[in-house]
């Protein structure tokens, strides 16, 4: 194992303490809707300036990975992703909670997060420099096709009407265009409102579209929010472990997906978990359970999003290019500390890097006991808090959370308005996920398209640029696969004379 001599440095009492505190703080912050992993990291950066660089990295990395895990709590219990990377966890997590399996879902999320986090960290440890090269091969056109892939996933994943899902996705894409265009500088769709000049923030849209409808429906009936399972006996750990072992291929594949997506600068947990979920669903033997609370779904999404932590550090540390938004903050912190990123970081300054990576691995491992503990506590409190107090508490969280993104009350107004619209759309059959995913993927798709167009024109052929690059062709292949696979398998089964029942 490279740099194993630095494992000892990672095990100092100070570093261990930092890892524990970091994971705990990160988990709690990530669980609160409105507080993202980026925010969590940004808040703690000033405290790290007095620390030695490796320790600073360890605590920041611990917070980061804890926050990505913590986002699952509100996703599962409140149908509101605590961080954008937990969006896909709502697909199966919330139905599981509604049916009384919320505690199982939380334990599964913990196991998956630890597994995914470890895979990502191990890749960081062993293969960082070569993997960084892979990241560079992805140009604007590849990002464009990736975004399109994400968008077709929206369509195929929509429970209910696929057309409504696609329309919702288009709505999200239009929302993402509000504001100043990154390429071209146009001001679009702001209807002359200064408030909209900065566009619609993803987190505002996320909290509004997911959480407000839940609140609106909570006040309408006297029923409790979530059913308690038959035994609140424990963590259902054994059950969770059995499920995880059965699903090991899913776990491994999803972690790979997460690591690779994390390596791509600009693509983070939200996209990773979406792709992992889609693959899990596509290859599942029992497809019918998806959408109604399928544990494999939670395993897929949570392992993928935590794998992006380790994966995201690869381009950050090797190239000086942030792999995910929290990495940008960490990079700034490193610069202030005087650490130069780049290949030299793995060369002469390798003590810092390796101590950090081992620290990250230890923090991830520590997330298992701590995550289970915090998870149980979170579950108990959400389930036993009387609804009358839950509603104002969550309401306050949405308000302060959306405010805290940019310290701007306009985001709160946007959040509420989108929430009301979201409730109406939900009643009409348009679920929030396609819309939010449209908001996230819109800028990536548009930037990729326009940049690819400019480069293609300069190089002489736009068509060649978009369709004949090797990685693009692979992604296009995936798009076609996910679009037509269900039909192909059905045809194949009918051909083989097997009844095509699910």
């Amino acid at each position, binding site marked *: 194992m490279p740099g194993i001599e630095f494992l000892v440095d990672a095990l100092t009492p100070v570093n261990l303490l930092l890892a524990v505190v970091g994971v705990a703080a990160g988990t709690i912050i990530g669980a609160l809707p409105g507080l993202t992993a980026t*925010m969590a990291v940004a*808040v703690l950066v000033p405290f790290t300036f007095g620390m030695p660089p490796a320790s600073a990295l360890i605590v920041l990395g611990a917070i980061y990975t804890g926050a990505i895990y913590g986002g699952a709590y509100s996703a599962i219990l409140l149908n509101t992703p605590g961080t954008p990377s937990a969006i896909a966890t709502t697909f199966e997590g919330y139905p599981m909670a509604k049916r009384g399996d919320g505690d199982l879902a939380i334990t599964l999320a913990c196991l998956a997060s630890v597994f995914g986090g470890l895979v990502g960290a191990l890749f960081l440890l062993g293969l960082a420099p070569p993997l960084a090269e892979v990241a560079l091969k992805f140009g604007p056109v590849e990002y464009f096709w990736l975004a399109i892939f994400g968008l077709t996933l929206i369509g195929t994943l929509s429970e209910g*009407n696929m*057309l*409504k899902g*696609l*329309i919702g996705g*288009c*709505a999200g*894409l*239009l929302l993402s*265009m509000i504001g100043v*265009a990154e*390429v*071209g*500088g*146009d001001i*679009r*769709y702001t209807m002359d409102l200064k408030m909209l000049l900065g566009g619609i923030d993803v987190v505002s849209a996320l909290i509004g579209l997911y959480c*407000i409808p839940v*609140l*609106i*429906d*909570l*006040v*309408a*009936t*006297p029923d409790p929010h979530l059913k308690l399972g038959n035994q609140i006996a424990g963590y259902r750990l054994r059950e969770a472990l059995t499920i995880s072992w059965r699903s090991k291929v899913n776990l491994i594949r999803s972690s790979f997906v997460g690591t690779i997506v994390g390596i791509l600068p600009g693509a983070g947990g939200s996209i990773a978990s979406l792709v992992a979920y889609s693959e899990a669903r596509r290859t599942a033997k029992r497809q019918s359970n998806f959408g109604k609370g399928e544990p494999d779904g939670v395993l897929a999404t949570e392992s993928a999003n935590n794998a992006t932590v380790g994966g995201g550090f690869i381009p950050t540390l090797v190239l000086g290019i942030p792999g995910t938004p929290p990495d940008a903050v960490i990079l700034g912190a490193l610069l202030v500390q005087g650490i130069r990123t780049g290949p030299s970081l793995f060369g002469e300054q390798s003590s810092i890097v390796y101590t950090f990576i081992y620290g990250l691995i230890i923090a991830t491992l520590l997330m298992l006991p701590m995550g289970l503990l915090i998870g149980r506590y979170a579950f108990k409190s959400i389930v036993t808090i*009387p*609804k*009358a*107090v*839950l*509603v*104002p508490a969550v*309401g*306050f*969280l949405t*308000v*302060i959370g959306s*405010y*805290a993104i940019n*310290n701007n*009350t306009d985001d*709160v*107004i946007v*959040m*509420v308005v989108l*929430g*009301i619209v979201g409730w109406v*759309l939900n*009643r*009409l*059959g*348009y679920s929030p996920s396609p819309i939010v995913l449209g908001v996230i993927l*819109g800028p990536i798709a*548009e930037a990729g*398209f*326009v940049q690819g*167009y400019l480069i293609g024109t300069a190089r002489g052929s736009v068509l060649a640029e978009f369709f004949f690059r090797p990685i693009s062709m692979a992604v296009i292949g995936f798009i076609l696969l996910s679009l037509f696979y269900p039909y192909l398998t059905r045809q194949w089964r009918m051909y083989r004379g097997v009844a095509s029942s699910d």
Partner: protein
Amino acid sequence: MTERPARDIASLLSAGGFIVVGALALYHTRDMTPLGSVFPRTIASAMIIFSVIYIVWRFFKPHVGAEPPAPGSVPRRLLLVVAMIAWALLLNRIGFLVTSIVAALALLLVANWDRWAPRRAIVYVLSTLAVVVGLYAVFAFGLKVPLPMAALM
């Protein structure tokens, strides 16, 4: 004999609504630069196309049942919505903490279906206040978020 649920008019109307939205979006692209208008035009067109396909599809399947109206109390839902809107608009004017306390208590009233026994009332009110003030403190002092403080905090 199975009773046919009422036809799902609402979805048809919503599809129509999206066609209008798409058309508006297309209309507004005339002020944009060529590069800046590509994406809006494509997506708005896609939205219109999908909505049209939906309406046509319904033409071939006229008996898609409507969703039953949302069960539960409409007045409470409206009150919650009004409270949230007021909350968002008043933050800057009356100050974050005061607005939040008032709004949270309002939400407590709207969300409570249990009878208002005195003990329960006190516990609920106190816990709501504790949550609001506690989280406010965490954000204002722990995370150093600058929360708007108008005349009344």
